[in-house]
């Protein structure tokens, strides 16, 4: 005993040795804190660089250069029997060329007519279709300018460069400057980006088709994976016996969550398209594929949520004579719902950005109108980004970044919703 206590006494808590050790421990603490902090700073920095570069290249495509001029809706070019096929191009052309009466016919007029977008005639057709009484009168319309002039207006490609080193020639610049001086050029918000579908002309291309396609895809994914996921989780958590088989199933679900998405795409191609003969490019097939990928996420989240409901609630319900079915449906499931919803939304947010499997089943299709159902071909936001990133036209460079920003916006919205639901519905015991 005496030996032991003398040992104890020999330990000097205030000696130089102990102080040095203490200092080292504090230093290690500070270092650990600094590592963590610098990791966060690094992550935030990378995020800022990513967002910064997207915003820098993308912000310009949120506005679109328009030219405003008066169009005489010439009854001579209007075909009463078939308004849809009337010659709107000539009406636009005649009226636009009238702005520059001094330009001689021929190549010069063709160059001049390069300024308004090809979409102008479609816009006029829409106006006339909505109100045929405008035929014979003069109306003022504002139409997008074609991509090279849009880029020029936005300062891409210097006007001081040699003529063969830019897309617009000297003469076109003079005309464009005159239009600008006359106040005919404006740069309003680019609504086209949201309310029209894809086009080969950047100034007419929008994300409507992709947004509608994404909606259908998520709908199918949700309808399939949510009930199946919850049912599977309830069985595994509440009913399944603990044995070798349930262990195997559990391990497999966890593994499935880690399978690369391209594998699901190949599976969908072989099974859904080739064996079942489902239509190519359809959101139904895309949704089924993505549902397979989100199922494990939802099952895992649901099981965790069910586990978190305190046993006292189950026992109380059983104690007053509720059946197992009643306990689960009336008590456990509603209480677990916030957790389940959060897990589901996060799974969906993951699904919205999925590209690889969709490429394999043809959801990277080019379509100039939005799809009208889950069996109609469609694109989704990420595949639209993929298509635009691969297009030669200069205007698509900025639009690719803009589309990514829109996709990120949707992601933030969904994650925000998940956080809101969790805060709102969460219960503490």
């Amino acid at each position: 005993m005496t030996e032991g206590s003398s040992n104890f006494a020999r330990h000097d808590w205030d000696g130089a040795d102990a102080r040095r050790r203490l200092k080292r421990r504090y230093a290690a603490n500070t270092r650990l804190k600094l590592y963590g902090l610098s990791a966060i700073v690094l992550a935030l920095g990378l995020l800022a660089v990513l967002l910064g570069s997207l915003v820098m290249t993308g912000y310009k495509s949120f506005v679109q250069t328009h030219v405003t001029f008066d169009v005489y809706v010439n009854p001579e070019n209007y075909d009463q029997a078939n308004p849809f096929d009337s010659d709107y191009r000539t009406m636009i052309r005649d009226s636009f060329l009238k702005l520059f009466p001094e330009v001689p016919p021929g190549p010069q007029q063709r160059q001049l007519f390069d300024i308004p977008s090809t979409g102008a005639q479609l816009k006029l057709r829409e106006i006339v279709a909505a109100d045929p009484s405008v035929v014979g009168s003069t109306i003022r319309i504002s139409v997008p300018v074609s991509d090279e002039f849009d880029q020029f207006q936005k300062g891409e490609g210097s006007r001081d460069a040699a003529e063969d080193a830019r897309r617009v020639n000297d003469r076109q610049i003079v005309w464009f400057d005159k239009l600008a001086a006359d106040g005919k050029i404006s740069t309003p918000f680019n609504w086209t980006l949201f309310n029209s579908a894809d086009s080969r002309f950047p100034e007419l291309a929008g994300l409507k088709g992709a947004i509608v396609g994404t909606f259908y895809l998520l709908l199918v994914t949700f309808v399939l994976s949510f009930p199946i996921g919850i049912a599977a989780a309830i069985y595994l958590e509440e009913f399944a016996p603990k044995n070798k088989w349930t262990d195997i199933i559990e391990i497999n679900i966890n593994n499935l969550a880690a399978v690369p998405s391209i594998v699901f795409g190949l599976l969908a191609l072989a099974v859904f398209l080739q064996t079942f003969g489902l239509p190519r490019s359809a959101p139904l097939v895309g949704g089924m594929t993505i549902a397979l990928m989100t199922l494990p996420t939802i099952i895992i989240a649901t099981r965790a949520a069910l586990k978190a409901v305190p046993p006292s609630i189950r026992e109380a319900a059983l104690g007053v004579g509720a059946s197992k079915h009643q306990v689960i449906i009336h008590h456990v499931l509603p209480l677990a719902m916030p957790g389940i919803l959060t897990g589901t939304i996060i799974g969906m947010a993951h699904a919205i950005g999925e590209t690889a499997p969709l490429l394999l089943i043809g959801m990277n299709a080019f379509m100039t109108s939005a799809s009208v159902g889950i069996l109609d071909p469609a694109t989704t936001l990420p595949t639209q980004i993929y298509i635009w990133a691969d297009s030669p036209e200069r205007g698509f460079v900025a639009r690719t970044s803009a589309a990514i920003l829109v996709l990120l916006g949707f992601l933030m919205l969904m994650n925000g919703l998940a956080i809101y639901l969790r805060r709102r519905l969460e219960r503490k015991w």
Partner: protein
Amino acid sequence: MINKTLIGLATIAVVSAAASGAAHARDRIQVVGSSTVFPYSQAVAEEFGNKSGKPAPVVESTGTGGGMKIFCQGLGPDHPDVTGASRAMKKSEWEACQKSGVTDITEAMIGYDGLSVAHSRKGKTLNLTTQQLFLGLAAQVPDKSGKLVANPYKTWKSIDASLPDTKIQVFGPPPTSGTRDAFVELVMEKSCEEYPAYSKLDKDKKKEACSRMRQDGLFIEAGENDNLIVQRLDSDPTAIGIFGYSFLYENQDKLLAVKINGVDPSFTTIQDGSYPISRPLYFYVKNAHRKAIPGLEAFLKEYVSDAAMGANGYLHERGLVALTDAKRKEMAAGVTGGKKMDAPTK
């Protein structure tokens, strides 16, 4: 409460799904195939949709080989109507088509695609011959005694004293791309013929030796995305890139073409064949679908119309190097008449 809302939502979804399902007998034309033909099919599809008011055709870029595979899987609404190709249909593909009942196919050669080699406008001008390109890019080249050795050239000057003393650095497409296939065929394999060192090898070995690009980091596979190559060239004035002519045409303010064998790529030089790196483009159509798929006939007519393919047509605006007038008329007649193609020889 939440449960009931969810069940309601799910019911609505299922009902709407069923409703749209009933409408499924395909009313949209389906086009697949080469990524090089994709922009042209895209343009025709958009124009057709705008003019006719019918549902816009679906155009998908699957690559030439992938397109052929889907195209030849069978007849009926589950299989595409048209496929684009940046090379002619192979014999094996034609046989696959025959086997699945796709026997009546019309072939249409729609024009040419030039491959451009270009560098940033900030760089020094460079003129190359196909042979110099080959020597700069092949994995193995013959040395002075004619023996094959690993490519020793690091600068253009070391290949030919008249070339500038800049590092060889070339961004190009990966082997999965049709552009790469065309480049190998038109530049590598052709130049290869001029060296006796290769003809001594047996057939398979020769093909491999001729088509292998160097892997010491001087030839860089830059992915399928040609826009990325353009952006990289812009930031590195000494590097050169290989891509489709339409990307050069769209980026004239940033890029300068490398003259090949003294010829600048342009619509004229590609059309008359004086620019050496160009290839024909095709589309194939199933004649059995013409009656079954509404609008297909009209779509094809639009594709081969003057407005699309003529000298000032909108496909030309997109970068297609059109056929001469006589050839175009012959092709258009074949497409509208549904001329059945013969078995390919290769």
